[in-house]
Each structure stands twice: as structure tokens, then as C-alpha cells.
């Protein structure tokens, strides 16, 4: 009994992220539409879109190899595992030993690797366009993310997400300047990696503005469904990450009873909803940057992460 319940909770978390991801993406879309005085698509529309796509034939580019068929599965599986390893409502679950923050970031990097390769395999200009721009953004966003990891891990004494959440939940952390800098930097990196304003427009099809869309332009059917779901999972992952590291209040510890778990679950859904509201408001108020101003934006995140790490190395209390 001692083993079964945590294992079930872990499996529940793995399934929860997949169920919640389209809902979260749909909620953000609906909020943005309402803020722009449109009625917008219904909340559950993404589920219907995914079901429709799964039922359609998959059409693959004529010149492409087996990589284009493998890539959607690889991208989805890697993003799913990364999202499942981030503690959402409970810490200390059985597989949390594998939930290292650096490993989560690197799994997303692997998914991006396959995404870029598949874009190049299609042999069109759009694929190369999207892949080269994504490579440039990633070359700044990944180091920025690693600096944030350093900041958080030095404060918490560990790079394992479960241990970080427990530390931040306890009183030992307090209000620290480097964590504040890390939060700002993480928000910027999250915007860049999930392809939101001001870095990328998730709804565009103009080649001047496409980054993520350009890489998946020639996917259809179940492959496109996998990629869309992976995109939604990435958004859920980053919101869960911000909630787990910076707002871990209400998360249930290991061996918690059912009422605490229920409260933690409700708290998690509430944090996601709050994040969705903030994202929708932010996206509605800001315009998209042109491509070569984005490195300055993400570079600012790298600088903030570096500054946070520097403050922690030089002084133990900042």
C-alpha cells in the first residue's frame, strides 16, 4: 500500500499534464479573444481539433526521409516526459529522482533538435527559415535557462525539482534579489521557448514573422496533432515550472493525505489559470518584435540570469 499510492499519484501526474495542456492553451486563446472583443473559439476546441487531426490521413513531403515521420513522435514523447517530471501538485513522488531541472531543460533541447532536423528534411525554404531562426533563439534561450538553473540551484542547494520545491516552500528561502532576477529571466525565456509574443506569433502564417510555424508547415494528420499537443505541453511545462519554483505554496509533500492532495490539485489548477490570465493580458498589450531585436530581448534574460548567479557567488545573502 505504501508503494501503490505514490506510484498511482505519479501516474496520475503523468496523465494530468496531457489532459490539462489543451485546456490551458484553449483558455489562453479564449481570454485573448475576449480581451480583443471577439467571441473566440470555445474552451474545448483544441481537443476537438486534435481528434479531427488524428482521424485524417497524414501527408508527408515527397523528398523527406523516415526522420520526418519519426520526429513528431520524438518531439511529443520528449516534451511529455519533460512536462511529467516537473512536480505539479506533489513533491517527493517515486520518479522525482529523475526530475532534474537540467535534464528537463535538456530534454526540451532534444525535442527542438528533432524539430529543426525535420524542418531541414522537408527541403523547402520555409523549413530552413524556421530552423535557422529557432537555432538563433535557442543559442540565447538555452544559456539563459542554464543561468537561471544555476541561480535557483545554488539557492536551493540542489538541482532536483522536488528538492527545490520543498526548499522554496520552507521558510529558509525568504525574499532574495537573485531569485527575483531569476523570475524575470525565466518569464522571458518561457515566452521565447513557447513561441509567444513578443518573440513569435503562434497564429501567424506570414513568412516574415514565422519561426515555430515555419518548421511545422508541411505536417498534417496525426503528425500535426502530436506536434500541436507537444506545443501545448510546452506551455504547461513552463507554467508548472514557474509555479513549482517560485510559487510552490500549497504543494503536497510526500505521504500527504487525500484532503491535502485535493487542495494541492486545486491550487495547481488555480496557478495555471492565473498564469493564463497574465499571459493573455501581456500578449494583448505588447507587439511582436522583429527578428533581430529578439536576441536583445533574450540576451537581457541571459544577462539577468548571469547577474543573479554572480550575486549568489559573491554574497551569500543576496
Amino acid at each position: 500500500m505504501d508503494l501503490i499510492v505514490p506510484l498511482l499519484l505519479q501516474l496520475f501526474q503523468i496523465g494530468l499534464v496531457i489532459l490539462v495542456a489543451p485546456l490551458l492553451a484553449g483558455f489562453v486563446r479564449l481570454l485573448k479573444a475576449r480581451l480583443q472583443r471577439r467571441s473566440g473559439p470555445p474552451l474545448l476546441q483544441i481537443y476537438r481539433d486534435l481528434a479531427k487531426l488524428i482521424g485524417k490521413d497524414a501527408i508527408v513531403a515527397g523528398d523527406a526521409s523516415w526522420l520526418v515521420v519519426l520526429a513528431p513522435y520524438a518531439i511529443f514523447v520528449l516534451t511529455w516526459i519533460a512536462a511529467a517530471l516537473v512536480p505539479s501538485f506533489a513533491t517527493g513522488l517515486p520518479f522525482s529522482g529523475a526530475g532534474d531541472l537540467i535534464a528537463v531543460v535538456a530534454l526540451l533541447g532534444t525535442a527542438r533538435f528533432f524539430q529543426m532536423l525535420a524542418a531541414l528534411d522537408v527541403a523547402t525554404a520555409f523549413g530552413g527559415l524556421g530552423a535557422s531562426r529557432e537555432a538563433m533563439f535557442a543559442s540565447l534561450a538555452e544559456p539563459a535557462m542554464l543561468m537561471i538553473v544555476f541561480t535557483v540551484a545554488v539557492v536551493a542547494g540542489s538541482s532536483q525539482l522536488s528538492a527545490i520545491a520543498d526548499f522554496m516552500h520552507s521558510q529558509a528561502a525568504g525574499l532574495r534579489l537573485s531569485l527575483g532576477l531569476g523570475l524575470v529571466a525565466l518569464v522571458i525565456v518561457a515566452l521565447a521557448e513557447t513561441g509567444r509574443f513578443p518573440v513569435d506569433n503562434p497564429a501567424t502564417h506570414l513568412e516574415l514573422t514565422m519561426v515555430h510555424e515555419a518548421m511545422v508547415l508541411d505536417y498534417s494528420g496525426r503528425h500535426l496533432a502530436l506536434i500541436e499537443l507537444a506545443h501545448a505541453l510546452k506551455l504547461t511545462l513552463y507554467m508548472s515550472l514557474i509555479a513549482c519554483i517560485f510559487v510552490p505554496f500549497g504543494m503536497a509533500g510526500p505521504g500527504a493525505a487525500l484532503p491535502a492532495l485535493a487542495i494541492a490539485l486545486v491550487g495547481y489548477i488555480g496557478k495555471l489559470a492565473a498564469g493564463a490570465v497574465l499571459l493573455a493580458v501581456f500578449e494583448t498589450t505588447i507587439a511582436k518584435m522583429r527578428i533581430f531585436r529578439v536576441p536583445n530581448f533574450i540576451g537581457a534574460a541571459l544577462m539577468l540570469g548571469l547577474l543573479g548567479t554572480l550575486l549568489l557567488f559573491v554574497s551569500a545573502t543576496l
Partner: protein
Amino acid sequence: MTGLGSLISPAATLSIAHVLAGALVLASFMMLYQDRLSSVINVLALHSTVLGVAVGWQAYIQHAPELYITAGLALGFKAVVIPIALQRIVIRLGIHHQIEAVGGISVTMLAGIGLVALSLVVMLRTAAHADALAREDVALALAVILLGMLMMVTRRNAVSQIVGFMSLENGLILAAAGAQGMPLVVEISVAFSILIAFIVIGVFLFRIRERFDTVDSAALDAFRGEAQ
């Protein structure tokens, strides 16, 4: 006020002081990052607001009521009056164009981080025997001063150099407030001298603009009159 004090632990009050000082450093970085003149002036308003809050918090934890007046002066003059006046000047000069930061924004930000590191190392080494937590506040204030100077050095436009000068003043006030306050008389005289300096600078800007049709200091260099 003491009821609130019992809620927050001593360590937390000082952490809040650090966070506010750090927010001022962050505002200085935001100022370095901006391209356009009107956003630079808006960030100056933000900078002075954060300074006001930081000095107010220092007043609260040091139980020094005269610092509240300093905070109020900062909020009143430097967060409201001066930015509005600068925006008016900018509109009348008609210079809403882009600022060219010397060396590019990324190099400037890297230099900024180097300056923050330098000020931290200087303060934490030379004042090693002093009170640990006040030392870090002064280190961050020194960083704000250095960043203000960096702003003045890397900008061409005279108005943005004035903004850099203002942020440098803010750093000085934070340092003075962090180091156990300063007498009210001195503060009033400092505020008035800032105001006078500002009026003089404004007048000069208009004279320069009248005479040379530009306030770009690179172009003004050409009129120096010495044999180059």
C-alpha cells in the same frame, strides 16, 4: 507601524531592502536597454519611484522620519515633475528618434554586469568588517552610480545623458540613505541644487538647439574650434 514590524522578521526586513536596491539596479539596466527617448524618460520615472519606495523602506526600518521627506522629494520631483518636464522638452525639440547606443546594446549590458561585479567586489572586500547587510545595500547603490555613469558615457544624445546623470543622483541618495541617513537640511539643499542644475541644463539645451540645430553631441564635437 510596530504592529507591522512584529509580523516581518529582521532577516526579512533586510531582504526587502536588498530586493528594493536590486530593483533599482534592474531599473538602471532597463534604462540602458531602451532605444527611444520617451521610453528612457519613462524608465527614469520608474527609477525614481523605486528609489522613493526604497528610501521609504529604509526610513521605516531605521526609524528615521526625515528619510520619509527624502523619499517624498524623490517621488515628487524626480518621479513626476522632472520626467514630465523632460518629456515636454523632448517634444518641443522634436527628437523622438532612435538613440544609437555606442557599442551596441549587448556590449553595454555586458559592461553593466562587469560594473555590478566590480562594485560588489570593492564593497565586500574593502568594507569587510562593516555590518554585512548594510554593506550589500551600499554595494548595490554604488552599482547604480556606476551604471548611471555608463549611461552617460554610452549615449550620444544630450537628453539621455541628463537622464543618466539623474539616475546617478538616485544612486547617491540610496547610498546616503543606506548609510544611516543624512540631515534634512542637506537633503533640501541637494534637491534644490538638482532643480537649479536642471533648469540651467534645460536653458542651455535650448540655446544649443537654437544655435546649432542639433543636440547630438557627436555633431556638436565638430564645432569645437580647436585644430583636430
